């Protein structure tokens, strides 16, 4: 059982955001809202072909257009976008950029996907820039292309890079991601039951509401970039490295950001292109992406194909899991391509071999729990099916087989998963909603229930904070956060107020500007509350120590306190958030329509700093999971390599009418780490969703849908 947490004075109480009024009055300033004197507008010309060599680019007609101020192409802009590819999931390591054989430039030749930037124009307004793009003449030599990630690894597939289509890792090795424990072959050999199956997941775009926009301005040799980023410090370092500048010569500002959802804790090509154009034109430049450009030019969740072999004893104990998988990275490896799931089960014999493959589709990258929802869908659909075949209740099967320690028998800081599952099953009324015989409702509206669970990484680590107190008694907290939606600046303010023992209103929070704020880890990996929160606590303690030693400041005096703690775990301990989702669906077997009738998300994310925002995070994650499970998909025309569903409408992200009420039950705990025991939260709310919904659809229909998304067409095709 989770120990009851000790209530705190400021932390843990539902609190509206400190900038809520700015958000509801239109005063919140996003990157595209920034306008500078003499500013130009820029647009990007993109490849219409999935794979082609540029023989020649003629920009003379575009340059001749009145109002055009600068044009960049691969010929006059050779900036390498370090974070854009060939990262193996370690994009902040400068040495990787230096050694990699597979560089991604801001403008590439050959172009490797529909949407690869070919040229960019800065002009007096966006209409002139758009017209100039039409006057650029590009002579392409078509190259053969490959779209499917499994086909890409066959011997006859067109090679996207000279080294082949198995992505190189950070050491230039074409090696798959491999994970092993125990002896899988032996365990499968002795297993009483062996099950095999194949699951697949689709490309799902982050599709944050704010399309990419960036304003770049040079003052002498100093560059200021207003850009949407969840990590101003890392974004600045990336821009500086890619442009060959010292970090201090780059300032990154992000006051507000219209959604992150992954891979925004670094720079983007738009930052480099805008900076290059601004330098060339000698004027500030605002670069805007259209929604379609954002869809094909940014990134989304990597599609996967997953083959499982599972060995089970007569009593339902899982003894062996083998995973062979391929993930589709697009032509540049922006992130790892990994899949989570094997660590969910306690069985001593497991092996996963995942091949990240290049394709000529748009680039894959991190999206809310990068390895989780798709990996969990595969393995937890597989295990739900094993439970069915072993004639076991899925909840009992999970309680029997879930991992109670981390791999290598490393202990968790605390373990609340069983409590999450038991309390969830009771609140959800699992026994009543789950059908022992799948598909047994008479129809046409068939109900069924499914569940899935999570163990989500919740590490600790280094970040910084500065707090000042002036002679008027005003506290100012400087933190390098943006608040991409999770409420970071309010969270940081609450933590400071708690530790200082003052009301939140006494703490002014300064954020979103590298010239004013110290390093923060960036709002990715669900770690700002933990890591930057730690730093805020330590800075507050430093301030209190100084005041205790020297007294409070008077008149024009200011006391300055700062901290850059780098906490570590005790021994081999592993820290995780835990949770389970319980879903009831109603499937109309005549129309193929799935309605989520009941959705319960249970989670131990440690202590909640702001329960108001925490609940919204969990509900939002669940609804994103519904979109991924039932309809979102970036579909390609196989003949031409063109993306057909780029945009909100055709991709079908959830709307108000798709969103059921999400019940959220937090099982709060304090394991002694994090800021007051806070664990990771933001990403975890989505992780088990697709598996839970898919399992509910199986329970309702008796048919196992193994390929996401589970569209009406697939349901009708299977059940008609």
């Amino acid at each position: 059982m989770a120990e009851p947490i000790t209530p705190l004075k400021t932390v843990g109480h539902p609190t509206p955001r400190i900038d809520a009024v700015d958000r509801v009055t239109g005063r919140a300033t996003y990157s595209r809202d920034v306008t500078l004197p003499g500013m130009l507008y820029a647009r990007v010309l993109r490849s219409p072909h999935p794979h082609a060599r540029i023989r020649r680019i003629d920009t003379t007609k575009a340059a001749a257009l009145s109002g055009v101020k600068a044009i960049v192409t691969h010929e006059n802009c050779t900036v390498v976008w370090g974070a854009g590819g060939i990262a193996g999931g370690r994009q902040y390591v400068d040495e990787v950029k230096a050694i990699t054989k597979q560089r991604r430039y801001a403008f590439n030749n050959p172009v490797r996907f529909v949407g690869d930037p070919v040229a960019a124009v800065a002009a007096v307004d966006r209409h002139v820039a758009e017209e100039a793009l039409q006057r650029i003449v590009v002579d392409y030599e078509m190259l053969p292309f490959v779209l499917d990630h499994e086909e890409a690894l066959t011997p006859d597939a067109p090679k996207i890079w000279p080294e082949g289509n198995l992505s190189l890792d950070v050491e230039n090795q074409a090696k798959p991601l491999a994970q092993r424990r125990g002896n899988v072959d032996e365990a499968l050999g002795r297993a009483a039951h062996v099950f095999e199956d194949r699951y697949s997941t689709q490309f799902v775009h982050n599709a944050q509401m704010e399309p990419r926009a960036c304003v770049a301005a040079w003052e002498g040799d100093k560059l200021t970039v207003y850009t949407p980023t969840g990590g101003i410090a890392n974004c600045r370092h990336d821009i500086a490295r890619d442009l060959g500048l010292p970090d201090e010569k780059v300032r990154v500002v992000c006051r507000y950001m219209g959604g992150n959802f992954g891979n925004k804790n670094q720079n983007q090509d738009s930052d480099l292109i805008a900076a290059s154009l601004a330098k060339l034109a000698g004027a500030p430049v605002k670069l805007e992406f259209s929604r379609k450009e954002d869809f094909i030019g940014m990134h989304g969740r990597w599609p996967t194909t997953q083959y499982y072999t599972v060995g089970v004893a007569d009593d339902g104990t899982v003894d062996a899991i083998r995973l062979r998988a391929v993930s589709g990275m697009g032509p540049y490896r922006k992130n790892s391509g990994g899949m989570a799931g094997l660590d969910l089960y306690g069985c001593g014999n497991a092996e996963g071999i995942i091949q990240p493959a290049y394709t000529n589709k748009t680039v894959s990258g991190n999206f809310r729990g990068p390895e989780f929802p798709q990996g969990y869908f595969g393995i937890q659909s597989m295990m739900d099916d094993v439970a069915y075949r072993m004639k076991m209740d899925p909840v009992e099967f999970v309680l029997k087989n879930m991992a109670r320690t981390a791999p290598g028998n490393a202990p968790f800081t605390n373990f609340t998963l069983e409590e999450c599952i038991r309390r969830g099953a009771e609140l959800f009324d699992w026994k009543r909603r789950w059908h022992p015989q799948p598909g047994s409702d008479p129809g046409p509206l068939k109900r069924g229930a499914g569940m899935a669970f999570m163990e989500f990484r919740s590490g600790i680590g280094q970040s910084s904070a500065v707090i000042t107190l002036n002679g008027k008694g005003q506290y100012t907290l400087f933190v390098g956060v943006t608040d991409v939606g999770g409420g970071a600046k309010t969270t940081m303010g609450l933590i400071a107020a708690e530790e200082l023992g003052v009301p939140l209103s006494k703490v002014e929070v300064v954020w979103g500007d590298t010239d004013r704020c110290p390093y923060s880890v960036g709002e990715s990996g669900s770690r700002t509350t933990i890591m930057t929160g730690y730093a805020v606590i330590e800075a507050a303690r430093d301030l209190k120590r100084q005041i205790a030693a020297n007294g409070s400041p008077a008149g024009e005096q200011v006391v300055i306190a700062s901290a850059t703690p780098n906490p570590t775990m005790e021994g081999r301990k592993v820290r995780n958030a835990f949770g389970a989702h319980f879903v009831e669906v109603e499937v109309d077997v005549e129309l193929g329509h799935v309605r989520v009738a009941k959705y319960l998300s249970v989670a131990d994310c440690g202590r909640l700093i702001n329960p108001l925002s925490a609940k919204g995070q969990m509900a939002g994650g669940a609804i994103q999971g519904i979109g991924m499970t039932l309809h979102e998909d970036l579909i390609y025309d196989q003949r031409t390599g063109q993306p057909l569903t780029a945009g909100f409408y055709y991709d079908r992200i959830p709307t108000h009418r798709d969103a059921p009420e999400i019940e959220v039950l937090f099982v709060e705990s304090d394991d002694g780490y994090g800021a007051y025991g806070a664990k990771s939260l933001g990403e975890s709310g989505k992780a088990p969703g697709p598996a839970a919904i898919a399992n509910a659809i199986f329970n309702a229909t008796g048919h196992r849908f193994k390929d996401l998304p589970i569209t009406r067409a697939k349901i009708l095709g299977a059940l008609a």
Partner: protein
Amino acid sequence: MAKPTDDHEISRRELLEGAGATLAAVATVSALEAQPAAAQSVTTNDTVPRTTIRVAVNGMRHRIEVEDRWTLAELLRDRLGLTGTKLGCERGECGACTVLLDGTPVYSCSHLAVWADGRSVQTVEGLARDGRLDPLQQTFAEHDAPQCGFCTSGQLMSARALLNANPHPTADDVRAAMAGNLCRCSNYNRYVEAILAAAASPRSRG
């Protein structure tokens, strides 16, 4: 030869004025088919048609010369500095740019500025009166409805139009009226709660 890959083949004005068939044709034009560069008539800033319009924005009357190709969103954001209206897609899919035109919610990205001639526009900046927040703004803040906040202005304007027409909606009424306002943070539950709370507030007709 140039083969523009985006929607740039067609001007904004043609796109907005085009019938559904035009839109469908644009969507299916394969970029592999030869497209002569600059097939459209190209106008520069010097020759672009302009029209002087009269428009009231948040109660303030303007007489202003606009380029015929400007959208209403461009007029509001770039010319009048009202950047509270957000552009999420510029093709009528997401609702972030929703404003009220003579009280009716419209997507300002899909409406030309010249069409606002003689009409009255309300944006998010015009919701608060005399320094007092609209009840919707109040409940949106209290219920933590904005996560990233980018869709919020549009959600507010659609919700204002709903409550003007139907002061006491059900949750289903709200979802139906708000179906054109996407929220990728998916804080839909909170938006519905906040709108119902505003409807229940004594100042709801404010």
